[in-house]
């Protein structure tokens, strides 16, 4: 009973998500839809007495593979659109043919399982699903398991070789950076200190509130230019700030 309720709920959710995956115009939405499909699958596995598969589905697919998908999307730019010009002639037609063929194949495969009752599950899960798997991994397939670590090392090595840029000069220390700031100050008069905070007489410490100097005037250094620009557009710019900006404009 619980199983069929879960199934019918998740069937609707995952089919809608899968359709959303295909038809959504934004790649990120598609990726998130894929995440929904994967999670539904994981729950379905769990309902089907396959807790290990469910855990792997969540840890590896939803956790890692999905993350890689999103990562690649971000890497190429979220809204970079693909060229829709088809370079292979008749691509669409053959894609549809292949899709239908695959659907037929799947249908036949599933039809087979409907005709014959599944067998062997009870034997395989005799000692519990996960412990039985552990027994297989650590006895019969222990060699394959250990060799897998070579694969993981290669993956890390590959990422480093292809993506890591070796630093050729030593990393600048705090001391170097500080020295450079004061050299800049000496040469060009650039303020070496951080920009001032809200100031002694300020009534707010929010970022759009300029700091007040001890004489009550606004410190020009503390004016947030981005917000000031917004405020100028909306006409809510405080007069003393506007005055400072204007003075600067004239000073240039």
């Amino acid at each position, binding site marked *: 009973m619980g199983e069929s309720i879960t199934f019918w709920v998740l069937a609707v959710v995952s089919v809608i998500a899968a359709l959303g995956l295909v038809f959504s115009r934004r790649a990120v939405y598609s990726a998130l839809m894929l995440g929904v499909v994967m999670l539904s699958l994981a729950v379905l596995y769990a309902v089907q007495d396959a807790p290990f598969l469910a855990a792997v589905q969540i840890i590896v697919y939803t956790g890692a593979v999905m993350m890689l998908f999103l990562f690649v999307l971000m890497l190429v730019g979220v809204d970079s659109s693909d060229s829709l010009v088809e370079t292979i002639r008749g691509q669409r037609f053959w894609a549809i043919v292949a899709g239908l063929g695959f659907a037929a194949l799947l249908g*036949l495969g599933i039809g087979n399982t409907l005709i014959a009752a599944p067998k*062997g599950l009870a034997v395989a899960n005799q*000692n*519990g699903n996960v*412990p039985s798997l*552990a*027994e297989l991994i*650590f*006895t*019969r*397939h*222990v*060699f*394959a398991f250990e*060799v*897998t670590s*070579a*694969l993981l*090392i*290669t*993956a890390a*090595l*590959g990422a*480093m*070789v*292809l*993506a*890591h*840029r*070796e630093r*050729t000069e030593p990393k600048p220390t705090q001391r170097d950076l500080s020295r450079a700031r004061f050299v800049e100050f000496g040469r060009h008069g650039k303020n070496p200190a951080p920009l001032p905070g809200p100031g002694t007489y300020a009534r707010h410490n929010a970022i759009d509130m300029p700091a007040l100097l001890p004489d009550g005037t606004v410190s020009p250094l503390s004016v947030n230019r981005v917000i000031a620009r917004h405020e100028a557009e909306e006409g809510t710019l405080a007069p003393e700030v506007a005055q400072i900006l204007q003075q600067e404009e004239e000073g240039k």
Partner: protein
Amino acid sequence: MNGTIQAPTIEYALLAPMLVVFGAAIVGVLVEAFAPRYLRSAIHVPLTLLSLAGAFALTIWQAAAKGIPTKAAAMGAVAVDGPALFIWGTILVLAFVSVLLIKGEDHFVAAASAVPGSAEEEQALHEGAAHSEIYPLVLFAVGGMLLFPAANDLLVAFVALEVMSLPLYLLCGLARRRRLLSQEAAVKYFLLGAFSSAFFLYGTALLYGYAGSIDLAKISTAVGSVGGQDTLLYIGAAMLGVGLLFKIGAAPFQAWKPDVYQGAPTPITALMASGTLVAAFGALVRVFWVGLGGLDWDWRPVLYGVAILTMVVGAVLAITQTDIKRMLAYSSIAHGGFLLVGVIATGKAAAQNASALSGILFYLVAYGFTTVGAFAVVTMVRDAGGEAWHLSRWAGLGKRSPLLAGIFAFFLLAFAGIPLTSGFFGKYAVFQAAVSGGALPLVIVGVVASAVAAFFYVRVIVLMFFSDPAADGPSIVLPSRGTAAVVGLAVLATVVLGVYPQPVLDLAHSAAQSLFVR
């Protein structure tokens, strides 16, 4: 939920060659991590060479002193039998030679992460930066190559396939010159390779569905006894076949080979053309004979067609190539076809099987050495921008450097299978097995394809010796000791196997005699 699981038995001595290679690779990564930059290469080269030599010695010791085991090792995961030991020895020697080539000259990029042609790349080059990660990567690939032909179940075979391929995908993209081509080669190889691995994995899953096991031996017994699931069996076997045929570059799955061979750094091309081919053939033969032997009435006609197509495609398309590495790649495709003839030349009789298998083994040794030698020569003919890849640049090489051109011509003749070269006896052994196995039409196609192939080999030879050298022709670099040793060794192997092949033939025969363990 009670009782303990008994610890598995693992025959460490039997697996020692592989363990040595993997261990050295891990030590190599540690060297990368902890040794200062100027020391790395100085540690890597002896470490890599010593581990390969040590693994080879262990293989010989196993075969000679301890006898050939009759049971699969590591709980039935790895079959260290006669053919596997022979293939291990071959791969280890070829890998050793390829590593000599790798260390020879600057074939590899200084900083792979820099954009090709950027100032950063220039700077890295100027500072003499280098990716010494190449050595552990090569060792991982070799470890995978050792495991692949010895895999006794499909899961180990898949893991081995990946361990072998992943470092190679990476190494393909590290050529110093013609960076974009190299990166393109890496991406193509990776995508197509991942695709073919997926086929292999689906095939494994379907065969598991059919036989209830992924052990080759159990699949073999299931082929005769399980009924009503033939669809699973056929689709699974076909998908497995696609994955394996892709790795050996048989038509119609050969498209990656020219692009990848052309773009990869030449020493890596040499490693792929020799080691990967040997490993993939070992695995192919094992899967088809041990696992799907009972199905041979079904796969034999398919492989028949594939072999013919492969030989024809390789030989005919090679004629149209103008890039020397692409030409060698197509030649490698054609040789894959010749080797497939040997796979088909099996029969029900054990003697027939042994003769076909020994033919394949000998062919693999002969071809492996010659191809490494040929690629070593390619590294030595240089233009200003790297290797002189265009065939027209090779015109008149015989007049500028008779020795090098002569050696290259000799290798080409060996590819063509002219008597007194190793290639002749290789083809002879395979074709003879095929004739006695009743595959005469295939042999005729093979001979015709050989003749076509001989045409373009001779064309290159004519180009080298009977055309005038260009005024600004390529220069022949003085080979480093490593490269010179590689070329010398390859010449020696090609001559000895061509003039006095008996010892190696005997060795191949005695390795094949025991057939595969089941």
